[in-house]
């Protein structure tokens, strides 16, 4: 079995499991909608132009829902002894990393895809634009790349769910800043040329952390 097949097998395993139970998906979706509604009300009471806070609210929602997903994904592995099974299987640890990372990316993106129309409606903005979708993808990729590694660590500590945001959020800040800036720029109608450096920055972050994380994943899962 070559490397790509191994990666895709892991992705398919996760997707299949989720399709059957739909646990993670439903809870994440409800959580994300609740967050949006809370934000909507809390800002509306004080701020004139709600569209100004929209980029921030969007990314905070994605970050929190994404954290939920990362926690669930690794928790499930641990609880059912699946991670041990994966480690025993004849595949490189990096295949496990890429498989989990892609799975996380797919799930978080799926939630985001569902959130965007709801968000657009609540904030009265058009969010289904190609440039914005690209940004969301790049930001989510960065989040998944670092999050997969750190969730593997967090799930092994005594504090479990609380540990992941503590570890993840300081590292992921450049992604949040870039993503919010580009989102705001696009919603404000800025020319894409002005925003391209942020996108390049995001791509740089994604690439560098993909390398750093897949190289260090081995050290995290060895037993």
């Amino acid at each position, binding site marked *: 079995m070559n490397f790509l097949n191994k990666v895709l097998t892991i992705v398919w395993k996760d997707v299949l499991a989720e399709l059957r139970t739909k646990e993670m998906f439903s809870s994440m979706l409800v959580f994300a909608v609740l967050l949006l509604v809370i934000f909507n009300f809390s800002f509306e009471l004080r701020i004139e132009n709600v569209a100004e806070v929209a980029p921030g609210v969007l990314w905070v929602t994605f970050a929190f829902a994404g954290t939920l997903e990362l926690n669930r994904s690794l928790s499930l592995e641990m609880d059912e002894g699946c991670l041990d099974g994966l480690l025993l299987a004849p595949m490189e640890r990096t295949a496990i990393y890429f498989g989990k990372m892609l799975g996380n990316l797919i799930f978080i993106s799926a939630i985001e895809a569902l959130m965007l129309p709801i968000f657009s409606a609540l904030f009265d903005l058009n969010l289904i634009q190609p440039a914005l979708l690209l940004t969301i993808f790049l930001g989510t990729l960065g989040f998944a790349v670092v999050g997969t590694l750190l969730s593997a*660590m967090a799930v092994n500590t*005594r504090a479990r769910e609380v540990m992941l945001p503590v570890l993840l959020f300081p590292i992921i800040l450049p992604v949040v800043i*870039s993503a919010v800036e580009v989102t705001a720029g696009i919603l404000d109608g800025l020319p894409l040329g002005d925003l391209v450096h942020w996108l390049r920055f995001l791509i740089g972050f994604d690439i560098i952390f993909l390398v750093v994380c897949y190289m260090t994943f081995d050290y995290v899962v060895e037993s």
Partner: protein
Amino acid sequence: MDRGLRLEDLLNWLSGLTMMGALYLVFLYAPTEATMGHLQRIFYFHVSSAWVGFFAFFVTLVASVAYLRGREHHWDIVAFSSVEIGLTFTAMAVITGSIWAKPTWNAWWPWHQEPRLILVTILLLIYLSYLILRAFLGEEERRARFAAVYGIVAFASVPFTFWSVRWWQRLHPVVFERQGTHLTPSMLATFLFCLLAFTILYFTLLLHRSRLAKLADEVAGLKKRLRLGEGG
């Protein structure tokens, strides 16, 4: 045993002397700055503290990589000792910065105007996260491994955080007069000497903290043997 003591003594004395020298230079030798007056003198300690904060983080990176390659326990000790010291000095930089900021800019923490404040806050948070991670891991080998990985990943994020905050700040300029610190030669000399003094202090503290950690490990080992001895 003798050799270890000598290095410690050397560093202790060197630290003490250079610090006294730095104090002399900062308060008696360096000229008073034109606009800010004597308040400006805090700059020497403020920047030196921040420098040590960043340098300590770099040492943690080196120690983390070294640990993962050789799995030698002393590298783990160096890594987390460096984080503790780095955290302390970064906190000092923050406090001295605030003390400097209030009379100068009339704000305790103007982080919209000064992107470095955000960066320093993130650095503090990363340090704290590192220590929290260690606190919640019981098993020694795993703790060292995870901490080393986190040290590496966290360090890699620092340049990105720096640049993104910089660019963000340029997009949101505030009409804000930032007084440049133009250093006369004597000020520059004082500043460089302070940097040196603080760096030597850092290494002294690192040595002491590492020794303390080794002793703590020995005590833990002895306790274990005692318990096993009594049980068996």
